[in-house]
């Protein structure tokens, strides 16, 4: 069983964190992963930086620009993750944009993921139709779960279509927004969370975008299986240093 599915089957709300590989320093990747696991985080999205991250707000844009300036590349990330499964046992997802994957070679990328022990992939700009027509067989061949997004604007028909194409969880974007751009959750979010929960989808849902503290984590996981934090975590390590991971996690799960 894929580590993602295994984790989803556990009877607890999942806390997942995103960080940009190569940020703040080029070789922080393994150390951040280790601290995240030790702090009790359930799953991690490792961000592969891209020059033009159009679904991201300023925080992740800036961490991506800095990571690229530090010299992060697709190959370097795989090299850094080479022995990661000797010590890290929680599910790992690579999250990025499709162009770097395309240039590396989709099949080679997937093969490398499998080799180092990556469990899933999130490519926001690889849409469902393209994935199913061109790449699904390759992802599956290397045991990788592809995670799709839905938003408050996604129609019920399309949610069902995405649910049918998914085998893991559905990434619920909390609002019509880029990352790190939401001040808090209101009625729109709680109605949306309830509406999706009531659809009884095959796949559990994990909420992302706008989760930044214990309060928003609790709100996001009232009806859903888990939540993902990105921008708020990156802000924390920007301000407090890459060895302060545990301090942040403690503020979320008190």
């Amino acid at each position: 069983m894929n580590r993602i599915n295994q984790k989803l089957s556990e009877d607890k709300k999942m806390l997942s964190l995103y960080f940009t590989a190569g940020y703040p320093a080029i070789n922080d990747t393994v150390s951040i992963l280790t601290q995240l696991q030790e702090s009790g985080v359930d799953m991690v999205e490792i961000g592969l930086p891209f020059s033009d991250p159009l679904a991201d707000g300023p925080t992740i844009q800036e961490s991506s620009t800095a990571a690229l300036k530090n010299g992060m590349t697709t190959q370097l990330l795989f090299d850094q993750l080479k022995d990661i499964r000797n010590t890290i046992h929680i599910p790992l997802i690579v999250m990025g944009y499709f162009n770097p994957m395309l240039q590396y070679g989709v099949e080679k990328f997937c093969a490398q993921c499998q080799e180092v022990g990556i469990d899933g992939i999130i490519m926001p700009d690889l849409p469902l139709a393209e994935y199913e027509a061109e790449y699904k067989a390759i992802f599956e061949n290397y045991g990788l779960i592809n995670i799709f997004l839905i938003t408050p604007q996604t129609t019920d028909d399309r949610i069902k279509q995405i649910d049918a194409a998914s085998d893991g969880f559905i990434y619920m974007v909390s609002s019509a927004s880029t990352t790190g751009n939401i001040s808090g959750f209101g009625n729109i979010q709680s109605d949306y969370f309830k509406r999706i929960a009531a659809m009884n989808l095959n796949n559990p849902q994990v909420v992302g975008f706008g989760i930044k503290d214990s309060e928003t984590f609790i709100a996001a996981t009232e009806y859903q299986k888990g939540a993902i934090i990105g921008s708020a975590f990156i802000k924390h390590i920007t301000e407090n240093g890459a060895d302060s991971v545990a301090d942040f996690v403690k503020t979320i799960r008190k």
Partner: protein
Amino acid sequence: MNTLERETSYQADERGYYGDFGGAFIPEMLYPNVEELRSQYIQIMEEPSFQEEFHQLLKDYVGRPTPLYYAERFSKKYGAKVYLKREDLCHTGAHKVNNTIGQILMAQRLGKTRIIAETGAGQHGVATATVCALMGLECIVYMGAIDIERQAPNVARMKMLGATVKPAESGSKTLKDATNEAIRDWINNPVDTHYIIGSVVGPHPYPDMVARFQAVISKETKAQLLEKEGRENPDYVVACVGGGSNAAGLYYHYLDQPEVGIIAVEAAGKGIDSGESAATSALGREGIIHGSKTLLMQTDDGQITEPYSISAGLDYPGVGPMHAHLFRSGRGEFISVTDDAAMQAGLQLSKLEGIIPAIETSHALAIFETRKFKEDDVVVINLSGRGDKDLNTYIEYFGL
């Protein structure tokens, strides 16, 4: 009506592909907006009331049809029969307004009340601000912070027209980053906002929709050439290509006429191998930018690189997917022209014909120095824009 009907074999298929290029590589957050447009744009464009309003505005407001002018002295110098399609005489000074008129009518019919756009040199921003003023709609234009400094007169024009100009402070702070910011705005405002893209780029259906609005250029050219030469088809059509909207408009009705040679002129900047160039067909590889699979200037690792050209309208790291297909299929002949050659060609047209062209357009004019034609070849060049906006660059370059 068959919404999948393709007017030429070089048009997008139902998935938005031109051969290997195109598609809609967009995050799910944009799917509802793009799908709303995709499912309705053909039907809306084909409504008689839309056509009537579009053509009335092109006539009375834009000043169409633009003349097809036989450039006698230029022709004599280069030994070919050269016609200039005078898009520079359009209201706002370039072909860009053909598209913004079309898209503002589209936005109204989709019930949108807020318009966003990206701009590089500011021409598309001005054309968008103009139609928003015309229709009384809110207008926000994203422009790279560096371009805002370089193009102060166009920033002032947009402000006079009532638009809000927002600086793109991310990345390299130029056109591609302004486009990223406009896309981010659209993600954050998915219900009331229409994004007026300025070229034949972006996710399907934008390349196809913008090409259809610009197709009026070749439609008029056919009728005008028939009158002047007794035939609709020239031997060649020539246009500069950044994203490629003026070229798409001039090529459109000639794509399936194999006897018409298609020449696309890209900006070589300081030279193809100088590291400061925007010649995408020579330097680009297949990749994804702004939701479209196309030829793209990028690093080995798939990071998008910053192009360079003296002309702010040509320094886009990608090219419209239709043009990528024309290049790969061999249907189009691609030539690149350096800054220096373009500047000289601009000066020359000014002196020979009394027309000061935009520097983008000067690239298309420059090919006559090296690309030889036959005496009786009829060549139509799209004179896509006027040079007023470039006076400072001309002044600095020539020490005028």
